């Protein structure tokens, strides 16, 4: 809903003094049959008889034909009119934004200690058109597939978070951490699978079967041994250090 404009609007004062513009019960330009003129899926074969322009939003009952003034706005769900479900290919022009892969430490790891990997970026709603009608598509991440570059991979049901977010110390295990066993440079790839839902103006969200896998940024990092990357300082001096 947009902000009120001046003339013909129905603000509180106009409402109270009964000067709001007349609510139209008529259809201007005759009834437009949704099934016939819109490209809603599965309606190509419908033979809409039309409501004769006698009133907005008339439901003609058993035939399932519904007429309404253009643009259609009576309180019914567009999905009632679809015979086939909306598919992922129908929303191909809505692209989920990739999540962002992060790691701790950043860009390096210690062999045999836990390296924390996590991603940021959650649910997204994209506004656009679907079958020429204004629609929203919502992408929700459901699966995080990591390949660690050392021949191993993992599939998580959450994006994970930082050491601090997990309330652990550096190099502690987290639900999304990984241990490298050999020095070297590694390429870490994350792909996030999203499920999708759509809704037309003013309707409830409807699931679209399947999911969309979107690669995130690649991380490059080098693993070294503890001896080569750490300074000598005993845990008695700084007890919260890694491995203490």
């Amino acid at each position, binding site marked *: 809903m947009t902000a009120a404009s001046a003339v013909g609007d129905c603000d509180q004062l106009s409402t109270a003094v009964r*000067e709001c513009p007349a609510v139209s019960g008529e259809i201007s330009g005759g009834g437009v049959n949704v099934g016939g003129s819109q490209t809603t899926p599965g309606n190509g074969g419908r033979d809409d008889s039309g409501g004769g322009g006698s009133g907005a939003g008339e439901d003609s009952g058993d035939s399932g034909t519904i007429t309404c003034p253009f643009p259609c706005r*009576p309180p019914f769900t567009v999905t009632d009119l679809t015979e086939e479900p909306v598919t992922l290919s129908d929303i191909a022009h809505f692209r989920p934004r990739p999540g962002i892969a992060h790691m701790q430490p950043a860009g390096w790891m210690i062999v045999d200690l836990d390296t924390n990997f996590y991603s940021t970026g959650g649910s997204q709603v994209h506004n656009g058109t679907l079958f020429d009608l204004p629609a929203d598509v919502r992408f929700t991440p459901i699966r995080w597939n990591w390949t660690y570059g050392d021949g191993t991979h993992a599939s998580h049901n959450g*994006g994970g*978070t930082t050491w601090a977010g997990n309330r652990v110390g550096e190099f502690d295990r987290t639900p999304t951490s990984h241990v490298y066993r050999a020095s070297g440079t590694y390429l870490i790839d994350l792909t996030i699978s999203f499920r999708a839902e759509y809704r037309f103006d003013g309707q409830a969200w409807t699931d679209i079967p399947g999911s969309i896998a979107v690669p995130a940024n690649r991380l490059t990092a080098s693993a070294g041994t503890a001896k080569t990357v750490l300074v000598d300082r005993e845990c008695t001096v700084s007890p919260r250090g890694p491995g203490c």
Partner: protein
Amino acid sequence: MRPNPRFARPILAALTLGLLVSVSGCSGENPSYAPASPPGSGAPPATPLFASDEEALEAAAAAFRAYYAVVDQIFRESGTRPERVLSVATQDVLVEETSSYETFASSGLKGLGSTTLDSFKLQSYNDGAIEPEPIITVYVCVDVTNVDVLDANGISIVNQNGRARLPFEASFISDDTTGNGKLILAAKELWTGEDFCEI
């Protein structure tokens, strides 16, 4: 190579961290531990705001009634302190209605009576909505049959031939300030489709 026994384990010095990050060609990550943006968990809200559509509809009805209670009171007080409406509505709603309140004040209008609401019907409900998307949108009839507006001379300025019952579409979001899932009005608009308030 396994780390040494506990007390002899070397620990990380911040200086070394910085040095090695630059030497090994870091991925450009900020070494602070605070996430740059909220971690994506992908999970739906742990507990839904409302247990059912019916409960959500009732909450919206209560929120809209609360809104009109404040509006009617502001009108009774000739438009004074309109910011009171922020307890039941968003800033956007207040801004949209500012001219109503200003007219009351400048013209010395006085409201009488109370607006009633009926025929609530759910249009959409989504408690996973991301602001500014509304959590719930409803259809409702706004009834000003028992409302009067007097001018500075005490004469009613209500159009007796006008519609006293009007169909509206109203949207609500959660009031984050109270943190208890209380709904506040985010938008309302005269419904220009089928008039479901005709008696």
